[in-house]
C-alpha cells in the first residue's frame, strides 16, 4: 500500500475558515463554498462530488486534502470499461497456479487447497479495496472522472459509498475500519445517476474571477512577475469570453505563465502570445478563432 511514512501528524480542523486557511497555505486558493463542502465531507463522512469543466483543480482538491490531513491518497482513475478486477481486487493467478503445483504432493483435501489459494495472500488489492483496508488512518479516496466509467460500475459504487464495505465472494464481506474520505470528480460527459448523487455532497467549480485566478497564479507560481501574471490572466479571461469548443481552464493559465517564463520573456506581447497559443487553444478551430478575434485585442 502506498503509505508514505514521512507524513506530518494531522491537526484537527476547527471550522470552515481554518480549513480554508490551511488550503491556502498549501497553495490551493478556495472560496467559502468549496471549503464548506470539504468541511462537511470531513465532519459528516459523506462523499463529495465535484463537477466542473476540465482544468479547474477538481483533482487537486483531493491531493491537497490528503496532504492537509496527513492521510494517504488513493486514486482511482475511471475510464470506459473499468471493471471490478482493475478497480476493486484481482486474484494473483500466477501465484495461485504455482501454489496449486506446490500443494500437489500434500495430503490436503480439495477444500483446504481451495481455501488456501483464495486467501488474502493471493489477493491483489486495487484502489477501492485498499481504501477499505486502511489500517491506521482514514485515507483520501479520489475517484477521478467517474462520468467516464459506465453505469454498471456506478451502480457497484453505491454499495461502497453507503456502507463502506466490499464483498469478495471467496472470502466474505470486508468492512472498513476507517471510513475513507471520498472525493468524486466529474466532467459532466454524461449525467450521473440520481442514486449516486443522492449519496454525495455536491460542489460545482466554475471558472474563477479575474482576482481569484490571479491569486491562484501567485500561489502556484511564487516566482512570477505580478505584471506578467496579470497579463496572462487577463488574456485567458478574455479568451474564455469567446465561444471556444474547449475554453481554457486554470491549468491552461498556469501552463501559459510557465511557458512565457521559460521562454525568458518579461511580458506577454502579441508575438509571445502567438508562440504560446498552444497553451490556451487546444484545437485548430480554437486557435483560428483566437487569431481571428485579434491577439492584441485579447491582451488588453
Amino acid at each position: 500500500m502506498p503509505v508514505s511514512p514521512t507524513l506530518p501528524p494531522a491537526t484537527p480542523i476547527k471550522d470552515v475558515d481554518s480549513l480554508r486557511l490551511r488550503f491556502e497555505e498549501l497553495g490551493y486558493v478556495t472560496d467559502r463554498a468549496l471549503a464548506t463542502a470539504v468541511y462537511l465531507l470531513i465532519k459528516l463522512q459523506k462523499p463529495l462530488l465535484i463537477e466542473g469543466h476540465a482544468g479547474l483543480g477538481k483533482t487537486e482538491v483531493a491531493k491537497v486534502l490528503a496532504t492537509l490531513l496527513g492521510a494517504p491518497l488513493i486514486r482511482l482513475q475511471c475510464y470506459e470499461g473499468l471493471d471490478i478486477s482493475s478497480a476493486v481486487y484481482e486474484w494473483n493467478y500466477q501465484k495461485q497456479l504455482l501454489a496449486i503445483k506446490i500443494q500437489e504432493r500434500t495430503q490436503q483435501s480439495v477444500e483446504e487447497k481451495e481455501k488456501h489459494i483464495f486467501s488474502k495472500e493471493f489477493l491483489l488489492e486495487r484502489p477501492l479495496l485498499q481504501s477499505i483496508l486502511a489500517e491506521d488512518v482514514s485515507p483520501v479516496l479520489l475517484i477521478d472522472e467517474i462520468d467516464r466509467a459506465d453505469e454498471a460500475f456506478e451502480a457497484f459504487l453505491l454499495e461502497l459509498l453507503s456502507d463502506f464495505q466490499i464483498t469478495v465472494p471467496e472470502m466474505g464481506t470486508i468492512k472498513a475500519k476507517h471510513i475513507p474520505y471520498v472525493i468524486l470528480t466529474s466532467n459532466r460527459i454524461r449525467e450521473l445517476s440520481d442514486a449516486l448523487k443522492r449519496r454525495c455532497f455536491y460542489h460545482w467549480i466554475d471558472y474563477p474571477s479575474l482576482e481569484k485566478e490571479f491569486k491562484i497564479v501567485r500561489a502556484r507560481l511564487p516566482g512570477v512577475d505580478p505584471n506578467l501574471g496579470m497579463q496572462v490572466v487577463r488574456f485567458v479571461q478574455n479568451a474564455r469570453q469567446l465561444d471556444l469548443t474547449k475554453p481554457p481552464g486554470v491549468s491552461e493559465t498556469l501552463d501559459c505563465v510557465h511557458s512565457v517564463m521559460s521562454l525568458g520573456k518579461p511580458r506577454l506581447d502579441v508575438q509571445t502570445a502567438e508562440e504560446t497559443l498552444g497553451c490556451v487553444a487546444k484545437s485548430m478551430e480554437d486557435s483560428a478563432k483566437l487569431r481571428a478575434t485579434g491577439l492584441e485585442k485579447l491582451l488588453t
Partner: protein
Amino acid sequence: MEATTRHEDPAYSTAAIIEFCHFARTNGLSAGVQQTLSAVEASAAIGVADRQAIACALRAVLTSSKEEWDLFDRLFEIFWNGARSETGPPSGETSDARFSVNKPNPSSRALMTRSSGETSSTDGEGKAVSGASAQQRLQKVDLSEASHNDLFALEQICLRLFRKMALRLSRRLKIRNFADRVDMRRTIRRSVPHGGDPVVLAFQGRKPRKHRLVIFLDISGSMNSYSLFLVRFAYALQKYFPQTHTFLFSTDVVEITGMLRTRQLPEALRKLSQCATGWAGGTKIGESLRSFNRQYGRKLISRNTTFIILSDGWDTGEPATLAAELCIISRRIAKLIWLNPLMGLKDYKPITRGMSAALPYVDVFAAAHNLESLLALERYL
C-alpha cells in the same frame, strides 16, 4: 444531531431549515428526505449561524447538478429574504407563483387532444384493425393521412415491432463477441480439482458496446402532420434503446429525453404538452444544431453515437450554418441518418437549399413517411 450549538439565532433553527428543504423541493430541487436530514446535520456541523455559511452548507447538501447549483441561490434568497422583510415566519406559498409550471400553450395543446382522442378509442374501435392484412396496410399508410383510429393502432404495432427489433439487435451483438478472452479467474477455480492444470477453460465475452442514439426531431409547421407521430416513434425507440436522447427543434432546440422516459405513452405526451414550445413554428435547422452542439455536443457526441435527424429539410436559416454544424457532428459520430417524410412522395428530389447543403454529410438518407419506412431503420443501426 446537536442542534443546540446554534440557538443564538432562531432564524436558522432546525424547523426553518426543514421548511426551507421543503420549499426547495417544491421549487425544482430533487433533494429528498435523506437530504433534509443531512441538511440539519450539516448546519449543526457548521456551528456558526452566519448566513453565507448556512447557504454554502445547504447548497452542498441539497443540490446535485449544475442546474440545481445555479437555481439554489435564487431559492435561498427568496426564502430567507422574503421571510425577513415581509411577514413573520418564512413560508413557501408566497413565492410559489414565481416558480409554477408553465401552462400549456395553445399549439402544444393540439398534441394533447390528439393523444386523449386515442386513449378514448381504445375500447371502442380497437377491433377495427386486426389481423395481419390490416397491419400490413397500416404499415404502408402515409402518416400524414392516418386517421385518429389508425394512429392508435399504429402506436401499438410500433411498440411491438420495436421491441422485437431491439431484441434482434442485442442478440446479434452477443453472438459476434462470443468467447474472445480466457477468464483467468474462473479457469483457476475450475483447475483445482485437476491438480492445477487448466483443463477446463472458462471464457468471457466482451460486453456489447453500447450504441447511443440521438434523435433530432423537427416540429416546425411544415412537419406538422408527421411530427406528432414521430414523437411516438422517438418514444418507442427510447423505450427499447436505453441510450437514446431525444431533442425537439424548430427555431431552437429542447431536450425531451426525460419527459419521454415514463412507462406510459399518454403520460409522456401530457408532460410534453406542458413544456415544449415552438410547435408548428418556423425552421432553423442550422441554428438549432449549433445550440445543440454547444450545449450537449461534448456529452452526447462520440464515436459510438448514431445521430438521427427527422426533418423535411425546409430550412429558413442559412444553409452554410447547417453545413458547418453538420460537418462538426458528422466528423465525430458513427453515423448520420437523415429521415425525410417527403421521400415518400413519388417525384421528390432533395433540392431545397437546406437539404442539398446537408446531403454531403449524411450517411443514410431515407424515407420516414410510414411505419414501414421507419422500421427499415433497423438495417442502419
